[in-house]
């Protein structure tokens, strides 16, 4: 049994103008100790997928269908109270923008201790001992436990957030763009740290990112998302080297190649579809140069083109 199995997950938002299908039929599995990246443009449903798994959706959104099986338990159907206990004990999150995720008027150590006290029922002293260990784990001087967030640098805050995510020894950790807004050096440190800890503790990870290099560095497999759907799913090598879907191809080619010739990088023409009024057929067809008539009419489904490599495309999916 897989650790996490997301099947046909649908998350809809009710806006004044209509229903927004932010996540529409996402399916993937994650084994123990494996890392998957959810990659795509802004607004393609990466974060919403993560929020659906953890049931932290804002009021306007709800899971309209599908299953999220975690260790065989369907998280989409359990009560909020039960989810409140599962969250952090089994699944934890490293938030986007750690800068703002710490309460400015509370000591950093206390904020991490808070998690341990809430979930493990330990007293303050025990919790603080655990915090000390966590600080050492994420390579921050444990004397800094009694400092306030403004005394931390950006990278240290992100490390503290990772410590917080590890506080209850979760099986799955969700990184929602954990390195955005950090400079490249610190980014590398944080990613190496995450990678190291993940291997040591045999954790699984869902990494949400729009950065293909981050994906290539840290993950085993990747799901490329477009407008709320997965368009290509495969190992990181498949995605980077043997990509099939035209969108993946454009995405990969919009990154400069440091070994290649110095030339202008290509971008993807057009803009992501308005999810209130999505195009018919394949959602990518208005921006796709290979589109045929079929693309405008029917929606392609994910097909396995080689072992564990799935693509949803009429043109390319059938050719190989």
């Amino acid at each position, binding site marked *: 049994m897989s650790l996490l199995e997301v099947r046909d997950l649908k998350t809809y938002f009710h806006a004044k103008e209509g229903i927004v299908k932010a996540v529409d039929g996402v399916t993937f599995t994650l084994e123990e100790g494996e890392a998957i990246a959810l990659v795509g443009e802004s607004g393609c449903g990466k974060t919403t997928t993560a929020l659906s798994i*953890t049931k*932290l959706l804002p009021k306007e959104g709800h899971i309209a269908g599908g299953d999220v099986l975690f260790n065989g338990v369907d998280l989409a159907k359990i009560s909020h109270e039960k989810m*409140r*206990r599962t*969250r*952090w004990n089994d699944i934890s*999150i490293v*938030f986007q*923008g750690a800068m*703002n*995720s*710490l*309460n*400015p*008027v*509370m000591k950093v150590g206390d904020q991490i201790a*808070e*998690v341990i006290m*809430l*979930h493990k029922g330990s007293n303050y002293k025990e919790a603080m001992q655990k915090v000390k260990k966590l600080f050492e784990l994420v*390579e*921050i*001087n444990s*004397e800094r436990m*009694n400092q306030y967030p403004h005394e931390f*640098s950006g*990278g*240290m805050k992100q490390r503290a957030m990772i410590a*917080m995510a590890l506080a209850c020894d979760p099986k799955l950790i969700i990184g929602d763009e954990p390195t955005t807004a950090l400079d490249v*050096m610190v980014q*590398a*440190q944080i990613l*190496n740290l995450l990678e190291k800890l993940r291997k040591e503790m045999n954790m699984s990870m869902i990494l949400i990112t729009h950065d293909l290099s981050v994906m290539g560095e840290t993950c085993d497999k990747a799901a490329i998302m477009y407008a709320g759907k997965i368009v290509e799913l495969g190992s990181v090598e498949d995605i980077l080297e043997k990509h099939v879907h035209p969108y993946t191809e454009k995405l990969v080619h919009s990154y400069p190649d440091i070994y290649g010739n110095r030339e202008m990088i290509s971008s993807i023409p057009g803009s992501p579809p308005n999810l209130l009024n999505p195009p018919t057929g394949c959602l990518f067809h208005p921006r796709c140069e290979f589109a045929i008539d079929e693309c405008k009419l029917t929606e392609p489904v994910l097909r396995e083109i080689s072992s564990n490599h799935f693509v949803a495309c009429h043109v390319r999916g059938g050719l190989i």
Partner: protein
Amino acid sequence: MVDPNVLQPKPEIKIMGKKDVHLRKYQQIIAIFKSNKIGMFGVSIFVFFGLVALIGPLIFPYDPLQIGSGDEVLQSPDSTHWLGTDDLGRDVFAALISGSRVSLGIGLLATFITMVIGTLIGISSGYIGGKVDTILMRFTEIFLVLPWLPLMLVLAALLGSSIWNIILVIGFTSWSSTARIVRAQTLSVKERQFIERAKAIGANDFYIMYKHVLPNVFPLIFANTILVSAVAILSETSLSFLGMGDASHPSWGMMLHYAFTSGAASVGAYWFLLPPGLCVVGVVLGFTFLGYAFEELFNPKLRRS
């Protein structure tokens, strides 16, 4: 591979001790406060009246209620009665000093009640939102638009005029503006990301309100407390002046009431009328100055460079 030593402090650099850091912070705060002249003026007034109320009655242990003999009525100030006597021959100076305790005591206790109610309603309303917010805010608005003086008078008359009733009446009628201010700040704090993070780690609403929202709105509550104190002392004076005070514990307002009813102004007994009036003005002014100074301290945007 990035050198993991980069973030670790080098051994030869001594990290500033906790005590040093705290000391430095307090010194900074005091320096900011000292540079604020209005604030320092407020502090001196506050300290002066605080000392008078705390140790004044111990140094001048005269009974303010002791009625003098017939020739002591409405005496002008002299060496035995420093501020003269009132229409019953009671010593005005003694009354002024014991009145400081009553006035400040009622003011501060009423402020405490005000702040507790205002904070509770403000944070619940702002944080929970929705219907709770609507109901609590409409309720607050009722208190906001009701003319407070007649309301206090009616309540004081209904409950009877004891010190505790006056404290309760002032406390329960003046929380509305505090509630609105606290709610506004709560609305802004609850949208911050660490609240979402607290929810994600499984904290319940009560815990978040108490542990995360309250400390973040506290500076505002504190600055507001001082301004509310001024209003509460003024309210007590008004109530007492209008005859709703507790006769066994004469406050400054009661003194003004007696002075007014006995016609002190028309017989030229300024020593009876002026001292309590000046004291009230002084205390209210001091609290107001102090309040603004604290607001400036907590909100660096208001500071002039």
